[in-house]
């Protein structure tokens, strides 16, 4: 279970996150929805210990990320694309990550097959298309067979087959009892797969609840989204 509790983050004079609070429960897919610049990535970076919150806490199973002894075995994260150096091969990238946790090489081969990159493992990441890069990021998240998946805009750049594959992966993971926190600004994608919703705009959580609760009275999710986020403040940010 993931808990974000009253998190505040300031950058310079801007308050990027203003007492953001929500939870992602096991066995459910929690979608983190918001316009560009709303604070989704900032929240996830704090959850994963990359940035520091000015106030509040972000916990995974009751503990901060930085205190996890082998984080990749608990949380599989896919943040902002690949994170692999462009002159390295996909295999080498996954290999060093696996090595930090003592994960065997065999597992690297498995995840590459699972995401469909087995044939491109020896290619330099710099030549990857956007979709291939996303798959590599996902492969890195799956390496440790974690129970929690934290995915930031996972379908970005994927073709329809890839999108369907992610939807299945995420659904199966939750159905097996795992926790999934998925951030996106693609309403259609989210509507098809989410159980719980957290809608954020301008650094504040404007609504949380199940899909049914949140969309009650607004019609479909798109209507709800625009109603709650007050139009499209993300454009032009």
């Amino acid at each position, binding site marked *: 279970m993931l808990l974000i509790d009253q998190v505040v983050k300031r950058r310079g004079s801007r308050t990027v996150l203003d007492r953001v609070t929500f939870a992602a429960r096991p066995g459910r897919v929690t979608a983190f929805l918001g316009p560009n610049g709303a604070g989704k990535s900032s929240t996830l*970076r704090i959850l*994963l*210990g990359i940035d520091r919150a000015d106030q509040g806490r972000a916990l995974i199973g009751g503990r901060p990320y930085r205190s996890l002894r082998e984080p*990749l075995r608990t949380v599989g994260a896919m943040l902002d*694309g690949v994170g692999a*150096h462009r002159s390295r*091969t996909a295999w080498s*990238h996954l*290999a*060093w990550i696996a090595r930090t946790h003592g994960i065997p090489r065999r597992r690297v081969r498995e995840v590459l097959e699972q995401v469909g990159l087995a044939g491109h493992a020896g290619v330099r990441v710099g030549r990857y298309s956007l979709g291939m890069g996303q798959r590599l990021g996902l492969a890195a998240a799956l390496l440790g067979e974690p129970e929690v998946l934290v995915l930031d805009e996972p379908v970005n750049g994927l073709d329809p087959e890839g999108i369907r594959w992610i939807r299945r992966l995420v659904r199966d993971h939750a159905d097996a009892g795992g926790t999934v926190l998925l951030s996106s600004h693609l309403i259609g994608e989210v509507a098809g797969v989410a159980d719980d919703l957290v809608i954020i705009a301008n650094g504040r959580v404007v609504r949380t609840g199940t899909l049914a609760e949140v969309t009650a009275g607004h019609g479909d999710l798109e209507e709800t989204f625009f109603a709650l986020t007050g139009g499209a403040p993300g454009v032009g940010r």
Partner: protein
Amino acid sequence: MRVGNVILAELDKLRTLPAVLLTAVATVGAAAGIAAAFAAGDGGPGAAESVTDVTLRMVPYVQAGLVLLGSLPAAHEYADGQIRATLTAVPERGLLVAAKSVAAATAVTLTAAAATGAGAAAAALTWWRAGAPPAAGGGGGGALLGATAYLALIGLLSYAVALLVRHLIPVLVGVLSLVLIGSPLLAAVTAHARWLPDRAGSQLYAPTDPVLTAATGGLVLLVWTVAVGVGAWVRFVRADP
């Protein structure tokens, strides 16, 4: 998380980064070439220099390669956002810096040793082919070890600066300007220039200074490196990447 694994992972990163291998090979090659050039230029019967002397003359040139090599382990993390993958895999930052430092130290030491060895071999080979036996003595193995230590420490200093600064070009320009331009200019002005990292460190292989010995000179260079390293460590552990 086992320290050994994290260190091995950092070494994996260096091993699989083409720029690292390229720089190491080029540095060793340059060392051999430059030492051979010195030997060919000044050799001949009655040459007053030993293999060691000639090898030591290539050190100021070859240090540039070590400066580049040392800055790669840290600087490459900040290209393409790899730092995020690194921090999610190893969130304990103190451990990460320690492991990365061990890996960087390994890389620069191996390259420094290979460069010194290649330089000595090339010089000896050049003289042997010219039929001119070199003079014996001239410091021998001790000076060569000192040269290796100097090159490794300069590489480590670069690593510390790169960890602090996070961008490759400013590190290269800054460290090289200091060592190659600033240092000689300052040395002409004041005797206190002996406390500059590269000047003090050069006592390791060319002990000419009245105040610093080889050991104390090397120590001064080490202190500089540790000082910058501490600053880099603090920034890395406490600040957002």
